[in-house]
């Protein structure tokens, strides 16, 4: 796995973690879709993710720079034993919950990894 991941790669991995379902992407819909996921066609979904990202950065203001987020996520995913990026993302979320490394967004308890991935959407254009 390469050391530095791009925002686009990470955003696609975001579509595979738990919040995707809560934001209207059903698991069945995601199956087989992720490799060709067109983020530009997912305006409402990205809009909601931006809300989550803002909520996360309120709890972790020192991660406001995208470069910091990309670094932290790349380091984290590289250290995990999983295979694909999607698998590593899910694994990271699971470990966050296990360690109690969570934050609250509008009452929802979400993992730090989900928060960081959501924060990456803030610089992604909504079509």
């Amino acid at each position, binding site marked *: 796995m390469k050391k530095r991941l791009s925002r686009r790669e990470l955003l696609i991995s975001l579509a595979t973690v738990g919040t995707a379902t809560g934001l*209207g992407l059903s698991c069945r819909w995601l199956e087989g879709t992720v490799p060709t996921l067109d983020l530009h066609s997912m305006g409402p979904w990205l809009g909601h993710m931006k809300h989550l990202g803002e909520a996360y950065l309120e709890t972790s203001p020192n991660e406001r720079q995208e470069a910091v987020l990309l670094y932290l996520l790349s380091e984290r995913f590289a250290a995990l034993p999983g295979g694909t990026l999607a698998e590593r993302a899910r694994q990271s979320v699971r470990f966050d919950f296990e360690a109690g490394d969570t934050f609250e967004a509008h009452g929802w308890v979400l993992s730090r990894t989900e928060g960081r991935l959501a924060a990456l959407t803030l610089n992604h254009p909504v079509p």
Partner: protein
Amino acid sequence: MRLREFGACESAVLIDSRELPHNCTREADLCIIGAGAAGITLARQFTGFGLRVALLESGGLEREPDRHDLLRGQFEGPFRGPNDLTNSRCRYFGGTTNRWWGTCRPLDAIDFEERPWIADSGWPIGSAELEPFYRRSAEIVNIPEFEEYEGDGQLLAFNLANRQGRPRVVPKRLYRSNPPTRFGEAYRRELEDAPDVDVYLWANVLDLGRKVDGERIESARVASHPTRTFSLRAKRFVLSAGGFDIPRILLNSDLDRGGLGNHNDLVGRYYMDHTRLLVVGNWFSTDTSFGTRRARHRAEAEPPGQRGQGYQVFTPTARVQREEHLLNCGLVLHQRPARHTKISGSEPYVESYGLASALDGTRLGHGRLQVPQVSVSASGMVLDNVVKFYNEHIPLRHSRVQLLPERDPFGQRRIKVDWRTSDQMDRSVRTNLELFAREFGRANRGRLRIGFRGWSPPYSEQGRLASHHMGTTRMSRDPRQGVVDANCKVHGLENLFVASSSVFPTGGFANPTLTILALTLRLADHLQKTGES
């Protein structure tokens, strides 16, 4: 209604106390006061046993306004829901089972233990002592055997175990009596036909008379009308009138000495109820198979007559409760119809929009009934995905039932309920909800929303009392710490017993009826073994 003469065995009728002569005296071997789940069950255990049993019911066979008015009193507490003094009880044959929902579950083993982090916790008996009686109770209310009883984790509908294989949260089951057993309807005929059981209707017990300077109850003073009373003399008495009326009767008796059984000022204290936090949060699933396993709405429950499997409830394991000093609790992922509209066509199961609709801000935080999480069932019904939370109450000495100066039409002092909670309960609710949220996320089974914005403390806005009146004559080995002993006999009195949730020293999170029945069956065995025929 025809009056059955005392001692006559051939007629199958109930006794209308209003037709008894004023100031007359009736006699029995065993006098049971209160014909709800406990009283009726106890009386049934004595049919054909060779003792004369008198079962006294304050009301008649249906709800009557003047009897219902006797329930009035004052209630004070962090909130006052719809289940206050008058709506939470029924003063007629069958008692509160005339309106219960039929939800049943044994207490967990840890609920009986003395837990150092919960002051005044600990029963003088353990769960193993009650287990055979729980199984007999299940027959009475027509629920299945508890396959998972004492088997934390055996009923895992999905694997919540962590990498070490040690689950922190386990699914259990809240069973449902289906349809809810109405004890008055279900067992009236049996008691009418029992030659050795006299059922007195409109028999309102005013007080119990103690033998002068003695440790025995001699008689109950009973009123069928504000101006007509009679005396019921018996060898033994059992109070089964519920968690509010049992302390009321005891405190109204022996008034000069502060009430019967009250030499340590404990009658009426330690009042507890389960608090249901109805919409404490929302949930969505990350797994489509989860939908087939979720709690089902009552409307989709089992056909009537089929033994009710009930629905799934998640609880923290006993280990986690010990390690993190938590109160016991149950969390139900519940779906209920959100509105009376349907989505057209036969949409396949569920798209879940909860997080999105919460984030768009349009339906967030407008009060208890505003639920942002919705799904669509296979039949097109719009459903709310809400989290129901059932919380254990801790025993608090200053949470209590007292007498008011105001008297009812029968001249008895009405009650005031001063219900208290504590910061420890609030903290435990919060910690438990966070635990559930983390475990569901870790297992990648979904996400929980554990409160609305500004949600704290939980009791002030979100809660509702479950009408499970517990603790007011608590059980203890030491008379200085409770009102009844391990056999439910009132400390210091030889022949007065209690069959009620009022004896619970702690109440777990489970609905109490099954435990009331188990304790009643155990008391029946005790009375029969030690009986004076």
